[in-house]
């Protein structure tokens, strides 16, 4: 491995970091909001909502993420919906995230013992208040490890956006392959950048988990 080439590759690849991180952040935010809605549907008493949530999870966890991206980028235009590569990727990643995180959030919600719901009810609290002040702060602690696992997977999978022409880090790495016929150094740099990013996610997750720990 030639360290000069490594250092030359870093800025070329780093140019794509913005796209990687913004796709990841949008998909995580949109997907988490969707996942929360899906988990409430799944737990609601209304059968149609339950079935919708179950069907959503079945569909978007059951087909490869790559196919979601292809559909958003290549098939939607035929249906009259033209999305930029970036938006198509964010759409696909958001659907994937919502489907996976819904189960995580649901498990967090049901981890809170039902006796607390009764106590909150008996005190006259509304469901929304109970959710916000009692369930979520406790659920977060339970959710954090699997939620982070999915978030890390999402971050790495943003590299699939290469295939719908988003100029993110993996795409720029491939440009070095074809322009300079250099492989090992850019691959090494790309791997190290992803590893750095996932490490940051793990540290944030550990911090959140610590902040929500139960004091015993």
């Amino acid at each position, binding site marked *: 491995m030639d360290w000069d080439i490594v250092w030359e590759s870093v800025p070329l690849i780093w140019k794509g970091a913005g796209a990687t991180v913004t796709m990841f952040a949008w998909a995580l935010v949109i997907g988490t909001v969707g996942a929360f809605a899906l988990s409430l549907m799944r737990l609601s008493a209304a059968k149609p909502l339950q079935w919708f949530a179950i069907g959503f999870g079945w569909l978007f966890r059951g087909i490869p993420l790559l196919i979601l991206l292809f559909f958003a980028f290549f098939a939607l235009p035929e249906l009259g919906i033209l999305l930029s590569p970036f938006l198509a990727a964010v759409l696909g990643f958001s659907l994937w995230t919502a489907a996976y995180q819904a189960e995580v959030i649901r498990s967090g919600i049901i981890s809170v*013992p039902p*006796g*607390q719901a009764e106590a909150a009810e*008996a*005190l006259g609290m*509304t469901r929304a208040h109970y959710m916000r002040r009692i369930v979520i702060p*406790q659920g977060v602690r339970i959710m954090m490890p699997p939620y982070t696992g999915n978030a890390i997977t999402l971050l790495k999978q943003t590299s699939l956006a290469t295939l719908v022409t988003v100029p993110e880090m993996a795409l720029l790495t491939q440009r070095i392959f074809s322009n300079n016929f250099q492989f090992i150094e850019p691959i090494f740099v790309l791997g190290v950048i992803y590893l750095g990013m996932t490490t940051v996610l793990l540290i944030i997750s550990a911090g959140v988990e610590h902040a929500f720990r*139960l004091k*015993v």
Partner: protein
Amino acid sequence: MDALVTVSGLHKSYGDLEVLKGIDFEVARGEVVAIIGPSGSGKTTMLRCINLLEQPTGGRIVVDGRVVCEQADDGSMRFAEKGEVREIREEIGMVFQRFNLFPHMTALANITEAPRAVKGMSKSDARDLAVELLDSVGLANKADAYPLQLSGGQQQRVAIARALAMKPALMLFDEVTSAVDPELAGEILLVMKRLAQQGMTMLVVTHEMSFAADVADRVLFIDHGVIVEQGPARDLLTDPQNPRTRAFLHAVLDRAPMTEDDDSITASGEDAGFGSTDLFSEQAAVEPESGPDDG
């Protein structure tokens, strides 16, 4: 009689299983009623119907003039509307067998949460109230402790303070000493006894016969979903008339009915220093109208 709670013809079924088979009773303001009976007799279900944690399948419940539920002529049940249920629940404090404290909040925050959220009390008022209440249950020094740092007896006393923070007119106690070590039951019972002395209206599902004898004005004995026998606490516990009551008391007391000198609730040593604040004195002043219900 000035009835705070009126229950008539109360039925509750789960599918084919009929748990309550027509329960009628009233509770006067300031009265303490103990509900005893074998496990599975329906006493907890009956208690939970009063604040609609269980939805009755028949009958009528009125609390403080508000209709909690009633049965229409066609047999269908009508329940108070959502908003009204919340208002009724503000009037009714409930303490559970398993405390059900919010484990991510301090003892103080457990108590201030509902007054702030439901009654819109200011942060400092809620805090002052919580401090007073913690003092009154002997836990003035535990305001910043988390539930899992407290013993069962302490947790249950926080739970009582939490319910009292809503200034309820009625308190429901559902076997509140059953999940704590026997030596810690006394400190909970002492808090309840003081509350009764201050004039709180209380419905107490309990296995603590000496507490019932000492504190309750009246005892209901429930078995198989009906009230088998009821009467003044002393009479029912020392001289039960119904053979089922007699058999039950014999079993739980492991001997014949109680003797007259059998009572006295004592606190276990550690936390005997209960605060002197008498939060419910205004209610105590209004109301020593407790007494046996003969009609």
